[in-house]
């Protein structure tokens, strides 16, 4: 193995990150140098963290350079671990305590109107992601991470799952395309992830593989923690198989990725979106048939909020329940767009009122005007009202 390794990022535009360089030496103990804009305040904390961690990995003699841009402990720890693992073979993981906010589980049918993509190897974007109140955050290991950075991103994402407060957002991770993605699960599943996104999913078999791997890991560490799945359909084959995929165990939502889908078809993605109409409708249909949530693709022009608004309205009218966001400013637009209309709210309110009235009277059958109302209709109406409330209506 190498004698010198580096991990992380350092530079003028980098924030909340650090670069670690470790050189193994034969003698002389640990020699740690720190360059940091917060050195005056955090020198002792950073040095003692580094020492503890190197002790933990049983590194006795080394020169360590920490070039820091205000990284928090979980980032520094992840970068050191990534650098160490390039130098020695070890299965050990240096874990900081998990914060109490990140021990929450989520329900299978919770709202998933917005999910904010966070590049897995860019800590500064994760720190404040939760304050923008997305329904979910996605720590991404796939497309937003350069191939050479995959290993260090995985460690950082693992640490973020334990240490970053996302203020109630569902904690999601997008693993790499299978089969590599199965390896990612080893480091993600044990750390209170709520939902795994499976990219470029084409068959139900792939979901079975994911489920089996998760089940095995959970069993090994005796973890009782619900982990849901959201496959992303990004190809023609995937669209055809979407119903089987949607029916698979633990799948709570089915997403579509239109950039890859249009590339697969060899066509251009347009603003109007006629070319993806079939695929989107198929996803909506498969998801509804499987009684799970259909989730739309991201809208990539972050500067055009008006176009996003129109896009969300079309998406909602097609039957989607949410979409991906690539910028925090998209979140309120998406939430507003998927919120029920005044008319929908009014109708739902009538149904719920009628149900309550009937229940009070002890009636078994609920009727609104001349129409009979059964339980799922009431449930849906209640959901509409809840959605209106959280959407601020």
């Amino acid at each position, binding site marked *: 193995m190498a004698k010198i390794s580096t991990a992380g990022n350092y530079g003028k535009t980098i924030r909340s990150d650090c670069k670690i360089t470790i050189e193994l030496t034969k003698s002389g103990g640990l020699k740690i140098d720190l360059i940091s804009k*917060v050195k005056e305040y955090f020198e002792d904390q950073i040095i003692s963290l580094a020492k503890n961690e190197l002790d933990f990995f049983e590194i006795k003699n080394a020169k360590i350079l920490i070039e820091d841009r*205000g990284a928090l402990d979980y980032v520094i720890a992840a970068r050191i671990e990534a650098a160490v693992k390039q130098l020695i073979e070890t299965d050990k993981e240096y874990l900081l305590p998990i914060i109490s906010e990140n021990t929450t589980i989520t329900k299978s049918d919770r709202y998933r109107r917005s999910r904010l993509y966070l590049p897995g190897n860019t800590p500064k974007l994760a720190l404040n992601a939760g304050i*923008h109140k997305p329904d979910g955050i996605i720590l991404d290991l796939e497309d937003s991470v350069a191939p050479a950075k995959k290993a260090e991103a995985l460690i950082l994402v693992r640490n973020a799952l334990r240490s970053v*407060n996302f203020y109630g957002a569902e904690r999601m991770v997008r693993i790499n395309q299978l089969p590599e993605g199965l390896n990612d699960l080893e480091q993600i599943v044990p750390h209170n992830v709520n939902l795994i996104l499976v990219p470029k999913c084409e068959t139900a078999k792939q979901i079975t593989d994911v489920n089996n791997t998760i089940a095995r890991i959970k069993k090994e560490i005796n973890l009782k923690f619900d982990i849901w799945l959201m496959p992303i359909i990004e190809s023609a084959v995937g669209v055809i198989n979407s119903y089987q995929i949607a029916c698979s165990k633990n799948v709570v939502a089915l997403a579509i990725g239109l950039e890859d889908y249009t590339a697969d078809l060899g066509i251009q993605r347009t603003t109007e979106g006629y070319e993806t109409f079939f695929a989107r409708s198929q996803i909506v249909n498969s998801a509804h048939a499987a009684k799970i949530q259909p989730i739309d693709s991201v809208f990539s022009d972050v500067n055009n909020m008006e176009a996003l608004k129109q896009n969300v309205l079309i998406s909602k009218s097609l039957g989607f329940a949410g979409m991906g966001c690539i910028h925090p400013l998209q979140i309120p637009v998406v939430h507003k767009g998927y919120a029920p209309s005044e008319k929908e709210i009014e109708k739902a309110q009538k149904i719920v009122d009628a149900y309550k009235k009937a229940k009070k009277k002890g009636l078994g059958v609920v009727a609104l005007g001349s129409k009979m109302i059964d339980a799922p209709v009431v449930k849906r109406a209640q959901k509409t009202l809840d959605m209106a409330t959280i959407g601020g209506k």
Partner: protein
Amino acid sequence: MKKADKFVKNAAGRMVPTIVNGKQVVPFMGVNKYRPAHNGSAPRVPTCIDYPKDGNKIVESLKEALIKSGLKDGMTISTHHHYRNGDYVANMVFDIAAELGIKNLVWLPSAAFPCHAPIIEHLKSGVVHHIEGSLNGPLGDFCSHGNMGGLGYLRSHGGRYRAIDDGEIHINIAVLAASAADMMGNANGVLGKHPFGPVSFSKTDSKNADRTIIVTDSLIDFPCYPWEIMGNDVDFVVTIDEIGDPEKIVSGTTRITKSPDRLLIAEYCAKFVKAAGILKNGMNFQAGAGGTSLAFVHFIKEMMVEKGIKARSMIGGSTKFLVDMMEEGLTDYIFDGQTFGLEALSSLRDNPNHIPIDIFDIYDFHAKGNLAQMMDVIVLGSTEVDVNFNANCITHSDGRMLHGIGGFQNCMLAKCTILAVPSFRDRIPVIKDEVTTLVAPGELVDVIVTERGIAINPLRKDLIKATKNSGLPIRDINDLKKEIDKICGIPAKPKLSEEAVAVVEWIDGTILDTIRKVEK
């Protein structure tokens, strides 16, 4: 002469000197506990018979004007900062002084910028003894390390005006850049090739200095009108090629922030203003330049349009955003103390409702009706706050001077003062147990808005009650601090020496705090 001597603990609990640069000063006594005596300045008394009958006061060069003004060792020289980081004039003045072998000058700028870094050389060589005025960038760093000959003296915009009027500072020579002037010295900042806006900061300089020199790059025919600076207050007029770089007036201050976190802070500010019942017809508010302030204006504007609300007045730094709002009928008036950008300049020139104002009228403690205290709400930035709502806008937590006070202290008189701050910067918490430098006493700071929650000063029971059911994340400041400390870790206290390098004056002229030398 000791820079600072005879320290006492003032009413804010801070150790401050009672002698600064050899002069007796008064320690802070508490908010509204001290009324400064107006002894009046005593400028040289001129007679018209000593000035040219044809009114022509043009001299060949700035050097000649300075010599004719009697420039000599130990004088106080004032300049203004309307060109902000693009000012050329202040550097020229001290280069000439150096050439003439003059020593121990006191520089009294209305604000200094990184473009004034060359003055460090003059501080080192003793041409300039010390600076009384905001210190930031390289000059702030130089002073923070204790390298200045005298103690730095930091005043707010209103405080500087007051100190000149009260005769606490005597200006020997005022060197005032004007974008247009005539041969007599009538001058303004709205005409000429590179206009910069109203001459709001330096009218008092022209009235109270022994000698006033106007420096312009656009000499126009008599009379130069509007004559914000009156030729009758001017001794000499100098024309040079360029008085400054107008591009640098606007840099970095006039674009809405793109940071989603800062936008969220601005949105919380606007929502708070609405929830507190401040957003109503006829309201008056200050909305400065700067990314977060502009974003606040953006959100307030949306709410005003939605609810059909029109303000009576807005105080600038006027920008295109304020001008658009006036043109869209969302405010009757703009009071303009400083102008950013061409749109704001043409509005100032052409729209009678865009009113240039003197700093005296907005900010001065002696004003009989200070505009700042008439404002319903003012949103400001800050480097640090503490759990007692004290605020700092000068130093960062390491004690280094980074910003001037500007109008920060003066704005504290508004009916509702909001500080919009991120809860941490680069892992350094912004909410402290105690601010490093006290610039505004906590009893005057009403609300602190961060991206993680809003803290209302317990003294403002009315605001707490009004916003109780607003759905906004209103939180106890101690809880907020706890959360931030959990994210960042608790930083070690910076190492500061006992040695004083500057003092902070409160708006009434008393000494609020001492800035200490930075060790490293």
